């Protein structure tokens, strides 16, 4: 990073001000309350995409994030509905469940590389969907519906988060929740990438044999990165289930998994904030094209192909082009 410390702090402050103050203010001024839902989705999807990005960082193409998002959503929904848990503790539990599952699954499959890993994770998404259909606890194709809104969260009698059901504007509450989690996730990721572990992960991306010959514990690092990635996926899935108050086997499918991957590509694989930008552009692009009706997918995919031809290294690589010229 060439930016110095002060500009970086200023940039983060500006970003926080925009997402927490400017966006809600602009929405309430314009009266477009439906945008809350869109932005909430963007925030949640970018959390899941951030996980995918992290696996890219260790040199693996992960098309299996949909599986963990689905698992996280189901864990949260089942705990709330069948075991009477409040929503808030299910959030970390869903994440941890996914992380634990990813360690078990990752131990064998992280030995694979390149397209093999990509294809295995792709089928993993399909496995998750079929499991959700087959297991008795997930209620098959009917899914789990009418999940209650998150309740109040209080620590030592102090109400930190009010009951969502009593709020006038639960959309705003969900927006703030999603954005907060997103900010935390990206902060964690930024910290991780710029730490010793992050540098080691980069060495994995370039040459695993070389890294391991210098004494890097590659198996351990791969598992850690994959577990963090799946944790993100699980958390995002859990919040998604809470917002839509339902979860079905088809809530996260192969298309979603591919989209998570595309978000990362589009934003740029070399940039921590790439997945956030990629998700924003793709999701809004898709939404804006809604007016074109039946040509929506055609224009969308056509634009994506053109974008790929012009900027194959992601949107954020534009800044590099500028720097080289200047």
């Amino acid at each position: 990073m060439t930016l110095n410390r002060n500009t970086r702090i200023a940039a983060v402050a500006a970003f926080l001000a925009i997402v927490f103050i400017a966006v809600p203010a602009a929405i309430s001024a314009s009266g477009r309350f439906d945008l809350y839902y869109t932005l909430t989705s963007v925030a949640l999807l970018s959390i899941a995409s951030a996980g995918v990005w992290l696996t890219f960082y260790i040199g693996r193409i992960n098309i299996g994030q949909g599986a963990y998002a689905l698992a996280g959503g189901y864990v949260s929904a089942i705990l709330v509905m069948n075991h009477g848990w409040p929503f808030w503790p299910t959030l970390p539990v869903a994440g941890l469940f996914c992380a634990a599952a990813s360690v078990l699954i990752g131990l064998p499959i992280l030995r694979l590389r390149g397209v093999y890993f990509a294809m295995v994770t792709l089928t993993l998404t399909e496995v998750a969907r079929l499991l959700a259909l087959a297991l008795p606890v997930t209620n098959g194709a009917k899914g789990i519906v009418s999940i209650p809104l998150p309740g109040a969260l209080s620590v030592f009698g102090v109400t930190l988060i009010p009951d969502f059901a009593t709020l006038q504007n639960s959309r705003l509450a969900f927006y703030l929740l999603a954005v907060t989690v997103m900010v935390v996730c990206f902060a964690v990721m930024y910290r991780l990438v710029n730490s010793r572990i992050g540098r080691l992960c980069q060495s994995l991306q370039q040459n695993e044999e070389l890294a391991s010959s210098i004494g890097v514990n590659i198996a351990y690092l791969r598992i850690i990165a994959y577990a963090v990635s799946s944790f993100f996926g699980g958390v995002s899935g859990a919040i998604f289930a809470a917002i839509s108050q339902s979860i079905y086997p088809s809530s996260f499918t192969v298309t979603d998994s591919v989209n998570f991957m595309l978000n990362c590509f589009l934003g740029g694989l070399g940039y921590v904030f790439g997945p956030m930008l990629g998700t924003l552009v793709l999701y809004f692009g898709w939404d804006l094209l809604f007016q074109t009706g039946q040509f929506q997918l055609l224009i969308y995919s056509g634009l994506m192909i053109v974008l790929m031809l012009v900027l194959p290294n992601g949107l954020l690589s534009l800044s590099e082009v500028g720097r080289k010229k200047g």
Partner: protein
Amino acid sequence: MEQVIANGLYLGAQYALIALGLTLIFALMNVLNFAHGQMYVLGGFITYTVYGQLGLPFVVALLASGVTLAVIGALMEKFLFRTVIRRSHREESTMLLAAATAFFFDAVILLLFGEKQRGVPKIVKGVFNDAGIIMPYDRIVVGVLAILFIAAFVLYMQYSRVGRAMRALAQDRVAAQLMGVRVDRYSMIGFAMGAMLAGVVGGLLVTITGVNSGIGGPISIKAFLMVMIGGAGVVGGAIAGGFILGMMESVGLTALREYGDITYLVIFAALMVFLSIRPNGLMGKPWG
């Protein structure tokens, strides 16, 4: 039992032909062609139009499917994949392009042919019923045709000049270039051939199962499965993978019938275990 094996062989022949195209493209360009299932659907719809709507002979329709897809494949390689591979820092970028083309084909197919399930009249009437095997004649014809195509493909790859060049490319791109193989040209031919195979299978299968615009994705996933079983980028592996998957599906549908629709779950789980023991599939080259 004989019935199950016959069904498995028939399915396997189709699957192997689909997997061959995918693995050929992968071997030559290191591109995982997400749009393979969509190419298959497109081939199916072209045969539907030429044979079912216009009433021309089936052979003409099959030819039309193959040629159209070959042209599309060649254009895709020349104008899309080659450019992106040249400009991008990372090889994986081609996956985004492949996924985008898959979406694009989906959209085109939907616009041109609609979302209805389409079928064509049977090419051969009647049912073979002997020795405990019941099999409609058209399935037998399609199965035999598929096996013929596979044999022709293998022989072509083995003995023709183009086939030799492509095998050299798959083994070592740089070395092949140094030996005077025109890399760009043969990449394009390879991509066109892979796409053509997808189109031909689509054309063959439209006579049996029909075709609709939504099956592209699932077909791609099946093709990935076969390639993983056999090992990516190996012709023999794709054929083996196709027949193994066809057999497993056929056996699974019979053996697991009373447990409900879990055949694919079992296949996936078995694949995970298999891949943890043999990460490169049956005969794949190490590290794809």
